[in-house]
Each structure stands twice: as C-alpha cells, then as structure tokens.
C-alpha cells in the first residue's frame, strides 16, 4: 500500500521534508498567504504521515537503522573502518518511535491551530520557517544515534525556539524571555559539547552504541554524565534550573508554547537515552536513580506550589508543566534506581518506567491542549490575567470543553489519560518508597485545586459586559485542539491497549542496552 521507497527512507525523509519546506516557505509566502497556509499545512501533514509510517514500522518490525551517506541504509560499519561506525546514524528504536508519534500528532495539531491563530500577525514566513525547523530539530534529536548529531539538532531546536519565543516582541518583554532561555540553553549545549569531547577523547567514537559498548564509567565519564544531566535537566525545566520555563512559556505565542512542551520532552528523552543506553548498568544506578528521583520530587512540589498563586494563566500552566515533568523524572528515576536488579525491576521497576514514559506522551497531549485553549482565550479577549476574565463559558463552549478535558487529565481524574499514567506511577512508586507516592498524590490534589480555581475564574460566573461580543474560537483552532483532546480521551479510555502496544516496548528498549548496541555493531 505504502511505497517501499518511502518506508525504507522514512528516517531521512522525515527530516528532509520539514527542512526543505521551511526554506521554500519564504518564496511561497510571496505569492499569497493562502497558498502559504496550504503549503505549510501540507508539509506538516506529509512530515507527520512519514513519521507515523516510520513509527509503525519500528513497532512492528523492530529497531531501524539509517546510515547517511553509505551505500546501503543498514551498513553501519564500513568494511575499511576497523569496526567503528564512522557515519552519522539514525537509530530509531521503540522509545524513539514513541517520541516520533508525540511530535507527529502535536506538530500537526499545532500547525492547524497556528494557521488561524497567527493569521493577523506580520512576519509569518519567518514564523513558519522557524516552526518547521523546530519540528526538524525535535525529530532529529529523538531519532539520532550519533551523539554529536544530537548536539547539532539540539542547537537547531534551541535557535528556532529562541527566535519563536521572541516572535511577538511585545515591548521587548518577549525578547527578554527569549534571551534568558537562549543564554541558558547555549551554556547547556556547550556543557554537552564538552561531554561529547570527553567521550570522543576516551573512546574514539561518537556513535552512541559504540560509546555504550566501550563504556568504563571512569572519573571522566562521571564528569561527562554530570554535565549532560545538568544541561538536559535544565532544558526540560526540572527544578533547580526551571526559572526560564515560566518566562519563556508565558511570553511565546501559545501555539509555540505547546510545541515547546514537546521540545522539552525531547530533552527529557535525551536524558533518559544517556542514562539508560549510554551508561546503563555501568553507572551507580542507586545514586543516579535517586538523583533523578530527587530532581523529580523537587520539580513536582516546587512547580505546583509556585503555580497556585499565579495570576497569569500561561505562567500558571508553565509552572504546572514543571510539576508534571517531575512525575516523568520520578517514574523513570525509580526504574533506574532498581536497574541491574532483575527481580525488583520485574516487580515494580518496569511499571514505574512505563508510568513515567506514558506520562511523557500524556503530558504532551493535555498540556499542549491547555496551552492552546489559553491561546484561544487570549485571541478573543486579549488578556492572560485571571482576575480580568470571567463568564466565558457562555460564549466559548467548545474551548471550555477542551479546557475541562485538559484540566481533568492533568489533575489525574479518571477516565482521562493523566489518570492512567499517574496510577501506574503511584502503584509502583508506593512499593519502592511509600513517602514518594504520597508526595505525588498530594501534588496531584494541589494541581486539581489550582485548575478548579482557573476554570472557575475563566469560564464560570455571569457574562461580563466587556466580553459581551466574544465569539467562539475559529474552526481550524478548534480542530487543532480537538485532535489533542481526542487523543487525551482515547488514551484515557483504552490505557491498556496503549501501554501494551506503545509504552511497554519503549520501556524495554530503554532498559535493554544490549539490543541498542547490537543493532549497530552487529550480534555482539
């Protein structure tokens, strides 16, 4: 049905299509803005389709290798290289495929949304160019098997995101937020580059599988690990390094904020990939596991307590994003803490990791949805200030429905997807350490309380006179939100199927370092 040419080359095509489309967009924009909308929407649809084809192929046929520049896509090790994979490799295993699914779904929904939410702004060709570059960066980051290539895509992503955060200059305030984000992410990226240099100096390789196979966990490797964890934890907004998150998330256009959530999860993916695939059992699993658990618990608690007093709805949601990132770190950290102990891993480690990974996809969907609803409200009433809103439930019914779905999902109320993943985290973490599970539940209750307040101040109450002529958000925006809401509801109704088909392979792919290595180096 699908031409084998596309399936075979899908790892390259999913990066080429948005990249080429990004740089043709300025030319298309000169013809007319309608054709540009069609072009960008079409390019993103094609990218999403290719990405989903690849993900489906990976889930059904196993890890895919794509070697750039070789004669055959699977020839990872050239015959005259002495057994070292020298070329840039895309290695897409089920964990990467999960991230690809997230990016494809959110990316498409958000582009539909942007087509009408950004219509009245100028400089749209740069907006779409940078948007497609962000997609390129995320897709590259989650599928590459070469650690330097990871750095390059990370930088593409940072540059494009910084440009988009500053896109609405807004009296310079947005630029200030972008500046904060970009200075931090540049320093973080340089830390990663130093770590890459250390790996290269030590193991003469840049290929992640090759480094993993030679990993000694010497003092230098510990330095490199600390640098990478610090940089990527900062990029995903975990708590001691979270202070850029509320600024950047609240100042970016809402559509971009939703994509920034996905981008932060690509960094989270990088963190997990480093810890599990690069180091795995060589590292001191208990120490590093607890380090990640503590980062997670801090993020959960600090994020939610900072969120409650916020007046700006997007700042509030941004702090909740920090808090939710904590759940993923907690779940996967528990899995890491028992790594190497097969019985504990089987007892609750896998389940904790599945909960954490399931939460990644759930979070991308419901948090994206919430940010998009905030953007729709802003489009109609022109403010993010909670104290000035009220009574919008009368005029923006669909937006309200989507907001309720997102809010209940983030608070972990059944039957939405947040409940499914949080339940898995609670159950498994309770066996590991009951106190952590109690903290997680308390945070969840506080999240619910916070969103009840937000819901009440935005949608409830009598119709305010200044918002008398507010209309429902335009159709493409509702469509974009609808896609995400549909995924939230479906994942909540059928969590068993999702976990079995998407999440469990991903968790096992993370833990099974041997498979990751042998996919590149052959049956070692």
């Amino acid at each position, binding site marked *: 049905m699908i031409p084998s040419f596309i399936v075979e080359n899908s790892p390259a095509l999913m990066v080429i299509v948005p990249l080429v489309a990004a740089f043709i967009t300025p030319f298309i924009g000169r013809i007319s803005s309608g054709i540009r909308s069609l072009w960008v929407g079409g390019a993103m649809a094609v990218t999403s389709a290719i990405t989903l084809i690849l993900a489906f192929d990976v889930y059904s046929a196993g890890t895919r290798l794509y070697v750039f520049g070789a004669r055959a896509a699977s020839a990872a090790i050239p015959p005259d290289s002495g057994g070292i994979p020298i070329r840039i490799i895309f290695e897409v295993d089920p964990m990467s495929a999960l991230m690809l699914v997230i990016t494809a779904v959110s990316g498409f929904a958000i582009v539909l949304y942007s087509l009408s939410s950004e219509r009245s702004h100028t400089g749209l060709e740069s907006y779409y160019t940078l948007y497609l570059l962000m997609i390129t960066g995320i897709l590259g980051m989650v599928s590459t098997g070469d650690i330097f290539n990871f750095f390059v895509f990370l930088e593409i992503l940072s540059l494009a995101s910084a440009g988009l955060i500053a896109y609405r200059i807004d009296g310079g*305030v947005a630029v200030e937020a972008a500046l904060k984000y970009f200075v931090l992410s540049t320093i973080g990226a340089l830390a990663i580059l130093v770590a890459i240099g250390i790996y290269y100096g030590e193991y003469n390789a840049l290929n992640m599988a090759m480094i993993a196979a030679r990993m000694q966990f010497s003092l230098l490797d510990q330095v490199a690990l600390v640098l990478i964890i610090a940089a990527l934890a900062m990029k995903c907004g975990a708590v001691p390094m979270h202070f850029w998150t509320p600024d950047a998330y609240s100042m970016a256009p809402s559509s971009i904020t939703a994509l920034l959530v996905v981008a932060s999860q690509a960094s989270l993916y990088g963190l997990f990939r480093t810890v599990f695939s690069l180091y795995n059992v060589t590292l001191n699993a208990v120490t590093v596991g607890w380090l990640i658990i503590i980062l997670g618990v801090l993020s959960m608690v600090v994020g939610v307590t900072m969120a409650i007093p916020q007046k700006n709805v997007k700042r509030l949601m941004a702090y909740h994003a920090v808090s939710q990132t904590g759940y993923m770190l907690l779940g996967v950290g528990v899995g890491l803490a028992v790594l190497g102990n097969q019985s504990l891993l089987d007892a609750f480690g896998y389940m904790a990791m599945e909960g954490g990974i399931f939460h990644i996809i759930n979070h991308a969907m419901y948090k994206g949805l919430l940010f998009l609803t905030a953007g729709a409200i802003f489009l109609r009433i022109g403010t993010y200030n909670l104290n000035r809103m009220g009574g919008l439930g009368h005029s923006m019914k669909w937006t309200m429905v989507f907001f309720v779905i997102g809010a209940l999902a983030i608070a972990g109320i059944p039957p939405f997807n947040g409940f499914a993943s949080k339940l898995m985290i609670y159950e498994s973490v309770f066996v590991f350490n009951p106190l952590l599970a109690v903290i997680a539940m308390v945070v969840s209750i506080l999240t619910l309380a916070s969103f009840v307040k937000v819901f009440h101040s935005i949608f409830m109450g009598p119709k305010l006179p200044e918002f008398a002529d507010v209309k429902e958000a335009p159709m493409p925006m509702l469509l974009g939100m609808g896609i995400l809401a549909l995924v939230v509801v479906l994942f909540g109704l059928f969590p068993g199927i999702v976990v079995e088909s998407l999440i469990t392979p991903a968790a096992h792919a993370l833990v099974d370092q041997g498979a990751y290595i042998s996919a590149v180096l052959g049956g070692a």
Partner: protein
Amino acid sequence: MFWNLPLIAVVVLTIIALAIIVFKKNLIKVFLGIVILESAVNLFLISLGYREGGIAPIYTNAPSTAMVLPTPQALTLTSIVIGVATSALLLSFAIIIWKKYGTIDIDRIRRLKE
C-alpha cells in the same frame, strides 16, 4: 607535561568566561563571555585531535596514508558554525532590548517580573 598546555588554556578560558557571564552586568560583555566559553570548548575539541607527528588529513599532500583523523576538526567547524548563529541571534536580541528598554544593564532588564 608540556602537552597539557592546551588543556590548561581550556580551563583558564572556561574560568574567565564563567566569571564574565556571572559577574558582568553589561549584556554585550555577557555575550562576549559566552563567545569565550565557545572558544574554550572549541580549543578542547581541537586539542583532542592532536597527534604528535601526525599529518594533516589532506589526501593529495600526505606522503603516506598515516593521517590524523579529521573528526575533531569537523566537530570544531560545526561548533563554530553554530557559534556564529548563536552570537548573531544574541546580538540581535541585544539590539531589540536596547531599542525597547534603552539600556543593556542586566539589572535593569527586569520587566518580566512586573
């Protein structure tokens, strides 16, 4: 211990750069700190590729096939290219901030908090 000199330079540059980034109040000086940090990292990468008696990896000039692996050079070049883009973006942010705020003192760029 003579061969350690580049690495010592890397450490010194890194400390200088971090000190500038943390203590200087002028936005342009902070950016220069970032550029110095980039140079330190580039120097680190390029010094990894040094082999005593190695020959430049230029096929037509090398007397034999024993050449230095060009990977660190390629990494450094890529990192320089990214550095150019980074500095350009940072400086254009500085231009906009100067236009909108009338200052580039980081203590006075605080409108987000209000």
